[in-house]
């Protein structure tokens, strides 16, 4: 692992900026910096968002597991619980449909010139994140750890080598994309 590189703060800020520029460029070329495309997905009329996300998941799932198998990287799965992940996910979903952008695509929409993203959405997300920070002690005691399952991954849950799942899941997701394309979506 490139541990000395990971520890250099200034270099990490620069790499972060470069990765962000490439990510924003790709999002705009893919069309997902637009409200119309994202709502098209949520209304199940335009499957661009799903096509991009699944292609990215398939590619990075294989790539990152290659890196970990070669000892060049470690996984960092996020912990979760039904009270945290599921309830938070549903709240996010409601906001996703009202706003029409997610935190990443909102930044792209700002760069694309969408003022609803800059004036309304940016302020909203910052307020919402701050609201969570203020509610955090209470939520932590009450709901966030309800039905906690930790940072488990599917291979660890089933106690198998990751590749036993990576290969069939990647193949299944490719098949799903073929079905979506064949259906003309």
């Amino acid at each position, binding site marked *: 692992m490139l541990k000395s590189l990971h520890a250099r703060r200034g270099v990490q800020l620069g790499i972060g900026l470069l990765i*962000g520029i*490439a990510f924003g460029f790709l999002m705009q070329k893919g069309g997902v910096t*637009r409200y119309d495309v994202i709502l098209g997905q949520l209304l199940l009329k335009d499957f661009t968002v799903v096509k991009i996300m699944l292609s990215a*998941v398939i590619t990075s799932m294989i790539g990152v597991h290659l890196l970990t198998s070669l000892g060049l990287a470690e996984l*960092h799965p996020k912990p979760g619980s039904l009270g945290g*992940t599921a309830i938070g996910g549903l709240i996010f*979903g409601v906001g996703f449909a009202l706003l029409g952008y997610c935190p990443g695509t909102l930044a792209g929409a700002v760069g694309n010139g969408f003022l609803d993203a800059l004036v309304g959405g940016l302020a*909203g997300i910052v307020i919402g994140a701050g609201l969570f920070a203020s509610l955090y002690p209470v939520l932590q005691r009450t709901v966030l750890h309800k039905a906690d*399952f930790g940072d488990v991954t599917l291979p660890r849950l089933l106690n198998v080598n990751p590749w036993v799942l990576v290969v069939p899941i990647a193949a299944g997701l490719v098949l799903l994309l073929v079905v979506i394309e064949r259906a003309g979506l």
Partner: protein
Amino acid sequence: MEWLAMKQWSPYAVGVAIGLLNCAAVLLCDRPIGCSAAYARTSGMIEKLFRGAKVALKPYYRQFTPVVDGEWMLVLGIVLGAFLSATLSGQFAAVWVPDRWAQAFGASPVPRLITALVGGVFVGLGARWAGGCTSGHGISGTMQLAVSSWIAVMCFFAGGIATAMVIFKVFGT
């Protein structure tokens, strides 16, 4: 270099490139792409301007220190990259009300801005509540086969699809 000025690339090409970029992030930064924590750090930085250094003692900001980090720079980079792409293809334009919204709810900016603000509050709250957003959970967590992230992304889309259907069918014209 004409392809840099194209209006749209194949979603599959874009997705594969984002996947490779995510591998680069894991290799070079020891963490995959994510976006929503940067907004929490920003809210801490703004709160610090008004309430001073004690803001950093809030339990949540002890975990997510209100400072600029690599992920914060990544979100800033997204703005620049999207601006670059939109400018090269002649698509950069200041727009208050997107077309799909205007067709369903009218072209007045005020309802759109209020909805975007309210939606943004839900997005910021929900993303931190769930521990990630469409990138951190939706792409970076699912590709690690994290159980939490597969649950998160199903909830994002279940909540999103249901809400979109209701607001467009009930309130749209």
